[in-house]
């Protein structure tokens, strides 16, 4: 307000923009030579060790309970795993079953919707499926993915090469069978989308227009402008509505139900508006609750949707599922650092894929633009906090420039409006024209690399390493697919591949097996007893369901009157 803005930027930032403009012609001329900045594996490791938030001390601790006891996870994650249950198990009457279904799907984003569709294709009738979701159907990170989805479908590409890219990007910690499934199913998923009428960017002959993603050796990113996630999500949601698959909105799962023979037999849901609980018994349960961005690990802003609070990790862990790779957090290198209103929001990697180079306050390139995300993010942090070659915003954020006008110069005027309209629109709303001026970026919390361990049939793995027969997971909640770092374009693919596999597996179980045996919350009581011995503070409860952004003053003055509860 007090600051005078010139085309969206304060005057002092304009000075740095002029330097960026000055070096632009030279950089465009030498665009091909940027590859010289590419780091070797050893250089990558060194950079990560010094500047990636995962490697910096002080952010993690070891778990004191459960199948992963002793594993190191972010403090924010340990806080929700080592927490009292949100519900009191004794207040739930399990004798009265509100929904008795073949398949319960917890989560109404991409993975849950795909699972439901494939369960129907597999012969389950829609009324025997229930999707329970915390927000609205489709309010999910799936809706927000911008850049695209990977699939090796061109003659000079190969699913095995896609596999290799994903393994290397994940620091070789990925689970082989999952990466194989991911990359081998990918072309099939794209074909399915084509049949559903997803409007991918294509040329007049029907060829997909495919672009670069970081850490890949081929251009294999299929996109729909920069609304790829939204386009896929609204099509599959439309299809789920056509098929009449029931969806309970604003009714998240809060605890899984176990059975006396050690299986998962459904869940307790909670209607956030009426506050009543529902008991769901299901022959098969699919966990599709998404990731953890709203835990704001290490205080980072996030690209994630409002409900990304890792509820699925909590529920599955209490029920005895094994987690993996939770020590690694994905920070997307390019979150908005300015203006304040959009801090942390995603600037799709496609901006770099289409030719924009990250440069420092002097307009100098300092990193190969398409390193894997963790490496790229670490390089940004180094530039801002070790070398000081950053631009500071009026609210104290630091950032480097992403030189978006290069795209128009490299690929012609109008390219940004045609391919990156969501980005253009977002900046335009705050007075910045990214076709004319660079945009300021800094890493933002983006993705849960690990999660609930599954096998290639999307079955969740128990503490003892064997799979649950009736319990499946797909999408960001599961782990093993991406190892320690996911590549761009593999998350939309992940939820499609493993959502589908979870749906098919669940349908097969529902068809071949009867109802689960007696439902129980014994595992929750047991967990609560351990919380007592660990002296976990009573107010720390989970799943947390939603973040709390209310003003400090309000929270300090807030009182609950015991009359309108």
């Amino acid at each position: 307000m007090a600051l005078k803005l010139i085309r969206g930027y304060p005057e002092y930032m304009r000075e740095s923009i002029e330097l960026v403009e000055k070096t632009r012609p030279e950089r465009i001329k030498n665009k091909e030579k940027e590859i010289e900045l590419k780091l070797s594996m050893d250089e990558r490791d060194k950079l990560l060790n010094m500047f990636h938030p995962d490697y910096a001390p002080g952010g993690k601790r070891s778990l004191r309970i459960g199948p992963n006891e002793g594993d190191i996870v972010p403090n924010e994650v340990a806080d929700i795993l080592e927490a009292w249950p949100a519900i009191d198990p004794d207040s739930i009457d399990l004798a009265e079953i509100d929904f008795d279904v073949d398949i319960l799907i917890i989560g109404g984003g991409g993975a849950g919707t795909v699972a439901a569709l494939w369960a129907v294709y597999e012969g389950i009738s829609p009324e025997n499926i229930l999707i329970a979701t915390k927000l609205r159907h489709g309010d999910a990170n799936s809706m927000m993915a911008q850049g695209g989805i990977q699939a090796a479908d061109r003659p000079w590409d190969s699913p095995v090469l896609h596999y290799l890219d994903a393994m290397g990007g994940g620091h070789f910690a990925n689970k082989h069978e999952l990466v194989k499934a991911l990359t081998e199913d990918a072309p099939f998923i794209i074909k399915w989308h084509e049949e559903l009428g997803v409007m991918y960017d294509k040329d007049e002959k029907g060829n997909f227009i495919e672009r670069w993603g970081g850490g890949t050796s081929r251009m294999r990113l299929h996109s729909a402008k920069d609304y790829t996630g939204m386009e896929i999500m609204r099509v599959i949601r439309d299809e789920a509505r056509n098929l009449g698959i029931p969806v309970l909105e604003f009714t998240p799962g809060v605890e899984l139900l176990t059975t006396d023979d050690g299986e998962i037999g459904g869940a307790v849901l909670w209607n956030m508006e009426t506050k009543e609980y529902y008991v769901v018994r299901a022959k098969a349960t699919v966990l599709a609750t998404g990731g953890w961005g709203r835990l704001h690990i290490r205080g980072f802003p996030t690209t994630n949707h409002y409900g990304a609070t890792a509820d699925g990790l909590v529920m599955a862990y209490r029920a005895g599922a094994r987690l993996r790779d939770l020590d690694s957090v994905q920070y997307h290198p390019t979150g908005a650092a300015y203006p304040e209103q959009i801090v942390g929001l995603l600037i799709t990697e496609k901006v770099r894929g289409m030719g924009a180079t990250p440069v420092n306050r002097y307009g100098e390139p300092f990193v190969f633009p398409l390193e894997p995300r963790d490496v790229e993010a670490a390089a940004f942090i180094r530039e801002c906090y070790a070398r000081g070659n950053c631009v500071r915003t009026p609210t104290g954020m630091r950032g480097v420039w992403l030189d978006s006008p290069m795209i128009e110069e490299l690929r012609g005027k109008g390219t940004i409006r045609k391919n990156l309209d969501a980005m253009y629109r977002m900046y335009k709303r705050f007075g910045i024209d990214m076709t004319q001026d660079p945009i300021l970026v800094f890493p933002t919390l983006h993705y849960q690399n690990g999660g609930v361990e599954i096998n290639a049939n999307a079955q969740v793995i128990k503490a003892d390493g064997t799979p649950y027969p009736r319990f499946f997971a797909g999408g960001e909640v599961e782990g093993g697919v991406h190892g320690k770092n996911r590549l761009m374009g593999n998350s939309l693919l992940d939820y499609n591949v493993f959502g589908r596999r979870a749906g098919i597996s669940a349908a097969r179980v529902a068809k071949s097996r009867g109802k689960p045996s007696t439902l129980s919350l014994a595992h929750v009581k047991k967990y609560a007893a351990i919380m007592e011995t660990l002296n976990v503070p009573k107010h720390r409860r989970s799943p947390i369901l939603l973040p709390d952004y209310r003003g400090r003053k309000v929270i300090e003055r807030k009182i609950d009157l015991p009359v309108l509860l």
Partner: protein
Amino acid sequence: MLSGKMELLDIDSEEIMNSIRKAASPPEDAEDWVTIYVMGKPYRVPAGLTIMKALEYAGYRFIRGSGCRAGFCGACATIYRKRDEYRFRTALACQTTVEDGMYLAQIPFVPANKAVYDLEKIEFTSNTLLEYYPEIARCVSCNTCTKSCPQELDVMYYIQAGLRGDVERVAELSFDCIQCGLCTLRCPAEIQHYHMAQLARRLYGKYIQKKSPWLVHRLKEIERGMYKKGYEILKNLLEKDPEKFRKIYESRVRESEEKRIKDPWEKEVE
């Protein structure tokens, strides 16, 4: 020009992370303030916040009305008037900065009926959109839909294109629709614009866009098991000779021109 590979001095990475946390935290105090009216009640909030963050600052905790928080999901459709102004305005709460004297209300839900169809069986003609959404014929060309669109789409034009059966034009003009439903709430002709547009886009994607010529070949190759051996070799290396696996990864050739490039794992296959 290339300054990527340079050595550094002593680094305290924990201290860096603490600085980042501090920089990203909401400011403790603000210099400039505005007054907004949330469903009529006045609240003083820092200037420069989005409507969504301002409501939260004021003490509201959303259950409805907050989704992606980034302009993609349409959950935070908001209607408002400014003091002393007759104009009725619309916005996405997550993408709009608060202004002094805004009278705000959020739309928790939009009642609208989606037509049910089987895209495989649909007989696609120039009348399909009218057949499933006959109310588009009631359009009076008042342009209220276009004025209400927070994405600034040409909503009325795509309804008109829909009337003409020009599915391609509807698909193109409506592509950036986030389905917030504000057009549908404002329409005097009771049209359900965004649902019609969804059908148009799917028809376009399925029946007008050409199918990829390569995709089917790749599917056949996969079905024939062409990549089985490649996966098998790499799996064995991963288990038995991770160093070699790593080397293969490092020596991948990056695509540089539009022709097939041999990659190291293929040599293993041969």
